[in-house]
């Protein structure tokens, strides 16, 4: 399997070349185009209950699609719904990635995707909701973001603070706490930051340069109101 990002920037696409028999797992609805040799197969990841829990719990799609080169080699083009960057990297089989629920775009068939519940405080204040995806296994993984993706690398015990609505993914070796952005409650709320996540290394944190919720409320002011 070979992959490359086309049109890097706001509106990228991933081109994945599959050898005969190879397959790739993708977010449902992500396929833009494919060679005629590719078959699309919809799959409930983790069985019916797993899929149901992922749909109900994390709001992720009930089905993932599997794109398989059953009738010879070919290519598929995949793209996320929102404008923003795509990041492709290899899962090493040891690192576990936690991904906010809209962040998964595609990955090797062998990778495993589960819904995870966050603790009460993280769920309420973390900005990604109570449910996130835990992605493990070995093989390439493509994440997508709203805006550009920025990678933060943390050495052991190194700390970094991220506004919670800018999180895309992080490795499980990092630990994080939710805290107020400023020392006082009033300053935290009036600064527009509210709550932030304090990450502690070692590990990687992937952040997005735009905040979907902030963009949503910016757009809302231009929408005509109905009676």
């Amino acid at each position, binding site marked *: 399997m070979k992959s490359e990002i086309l049109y890097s920037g706001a509106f990228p696409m991933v081109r994945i070349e599959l050898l005969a028999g190879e397959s790739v797992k993708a977010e449902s609805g992500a396929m833009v185009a494919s060679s005629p040799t590719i078959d699309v197969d919809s799959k409930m990841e983790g069985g019916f209950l797993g899929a149901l829990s992922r749909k109900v719990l994390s709001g992720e799609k009930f089905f993932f699609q599997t794109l398989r080169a059953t009738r010879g080699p070919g290519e598929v083009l995949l793209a996320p719904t929102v404008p923003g960057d795509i990041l492709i990297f290899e899962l090493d089989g040891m690192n576990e990635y936690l991904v906010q629920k809209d962040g998964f775009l595609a990955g090797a068939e062998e990778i495993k995707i589960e819904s995870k519940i966050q603790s009460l405080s993280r769920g309420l204040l973390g900005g990604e909701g109570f449910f996130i995806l835990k992605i493990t296994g070995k093989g390439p993984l493509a994440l997508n973001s709203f805006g550009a993706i920025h990678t933060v690398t943390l050495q052991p015990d190194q700390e970094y603070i991220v506004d919670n609505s800018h999180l895309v993914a992080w490795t499980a070796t990092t*630990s994080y706490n939710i805290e107020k952005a400023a020392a006082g409650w009033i300053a935290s709320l009036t600064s527009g930051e509210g709550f932030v996540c304090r990450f502690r290394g070692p590990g990687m944190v992937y952040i997005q340069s735009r905040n979907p919720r902030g963009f949503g409320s910016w757009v809302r002011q231009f929408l005509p109101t109905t009676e």
Partner: protein
Amino acid sequence: MDKPHNALYFSRTHPASGCPCHLEVLPGGLTVSVSESSVETVPLERLSIKSGGFDYDHLILSWTTDGDERQMYVKDPIVIASLATLTAPEVSRHIARSIKDTSRARQATKMWIWLTMASLMAILVGLWAASDVLVQVAVHRIPIEWEHTLGESARQQVLMGQRVITEGPTVDAVQNMTKRLAGQLHDSPYRFRATVVRNETVNAMALPGGSVIVYTGLLKQADSPEEVAGVLAHELSHVVLRHGMESMVQSAGLMTIVMVVLGNQQGAIGALERLGIQITSLKFSRDKETAADLHGLHLLDEADISPAGMIAFFERLAKSDGMPTALLSTHPMSAERAARLKREASSLPRVSPVPLDVDWAAVKASL
């Protein structure tokens, strides 16, 4: 050949995502093989151990080599077990504590899930238990005028395709009985109006707002005008007790109830009107039937009509087989219900009934 990876190794000189490595636990210490050329041995006494990771299912081993802090994330159960057996008692205790922490964290998560599910269930059960009360509250918010509008649209839908009898002894008789019964309902905001339909089905119904529809099949089946009056009294009671409205609101669902309760009554009336067609097949709960029975019985009593006709008619209907009795399917007659009616009737003060002003022979002849 490379040894299989079973841990993640972190140091300042390695990538921040960690290096997958092979970890071996030997009596003398840990052997960490990042690659064939890079093998590090760490004496067990230099290790500090804690639990970590998203699910608290990793052991984090830390030590310092040449002033550089190193960390190792281990999840492999075999490695964790051998660490626990080989390390000094206090370290073993630490590992045991870490394992306990992990299971406690998992239990806390599980408990949280169960608590959430239990509270959701409790809310659902609570809503279900309170649904009758909610329905009544919602129905109370519906103005009588709307009931008239709804009832009228339901009446038109019921009468669509039916042959309505507009005059003659049957119409006179049914209207006369309705008037006599309605006369007892002082202060009632409803306008009671009876319509007779030529249809062989044994049926009668009362619609919200006060419209009563009687099928000729029912009149054919009745042996006396008191029996017809009994059915009418029961049906009028459903109107007065607003059972039709309650059933409509129940079928329309909680959203309608909420809309009505919160005051968005325009939306609710549309939803209920769309459901108007179903009013003919709406079944009332046993409680509502009993309530209508008892209310009807008292209504007959107040109008000086013998309640025996009502009981006899419903009882006979229950025994008859193979007849198209729509009335029975919406008003199931049980022995219990009949007994209850008889008991209630016998408790009423005995007054001599005043015969109905109906030419029963002419009614029967016209059917």
